[in-house]
């Protein structure tokens, strides 16, 4: 059973196109994230949702729009793709909470390699 899954695994598209990446977790976690890992392996948080509510929104171009239809899904839509958007995008999830109820481990999906030509 895959804990955090992403589709597609690879995405090759041309500049200016609009694309979406889907993420689903079956761990029952209430917090989900999107990370971008560039060619230098720098792993940077983009967004975080807790129970479908946006809680972290880093300095990301507004061409990127996350959507969480329910707490098990967090999709990422990208408009007007640019060359600099080429990267691996990871979805992750964790069980939030406070104090001893919180589980700190983030489970990452397998990643989506986006190539913009």
């Amino acid at each position, binding site marked *: 059973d895959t804990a955090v899954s992403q589709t597609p695994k690879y995405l090759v598209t041309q500049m200016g196109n609009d694309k979406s990446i889907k993420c689903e977790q079956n761990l029952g976690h209430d917090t989900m994230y999107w990370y971008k890992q560039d060619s230098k*392996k720098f792993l940077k948080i983009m967004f975080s949702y807790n129970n479908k509510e946006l809680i972290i929104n880093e300095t990301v171009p507004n061409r990127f729009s996350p959507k969480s239809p329910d707490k098990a899904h967090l999709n990422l839509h990208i408009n007007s793709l640019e060359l600099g958007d080429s990267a691996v995008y990871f979805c992750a999830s964790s069980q939030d909470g406070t104090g001893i109820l919180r589980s700190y481990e983030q489970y990452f999906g397998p990643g989506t390699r986006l190539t913009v030509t």
Partner: protein
Amino acid sequence: QQPVQSPQAVILREGEDAVINCSSSKALYSVHWYRQKHGEAPVFLMILLKGGEQMRHEKISASFNEKKQQSSLYLTASQLSYSGTYFCGTEWRSSASKIIFGSGTRLSIRP
């Protein structure tokens, strides 16, 4: 304020030890360590909380010096399976759920 990791890369022979450091310019609540093998997703190793104990994962241990705002990851008697890129992630306040990752330390283990 991305944490700074050092060294950037390490090459070891199987059985040797290594230390990876992670330091922050800001007061930390917690430090997280992840390992990412080539072409795979990052995998959680351990977390160190402010005021908490030194943690351990197999033969990998880590410490957290709150005063110096830094953490060190100790890999003892390294195995081939330890190869990968190690990331430290820092969190500045509890329940923030926001981890800022360092640039990573690439560890290569030779037989």
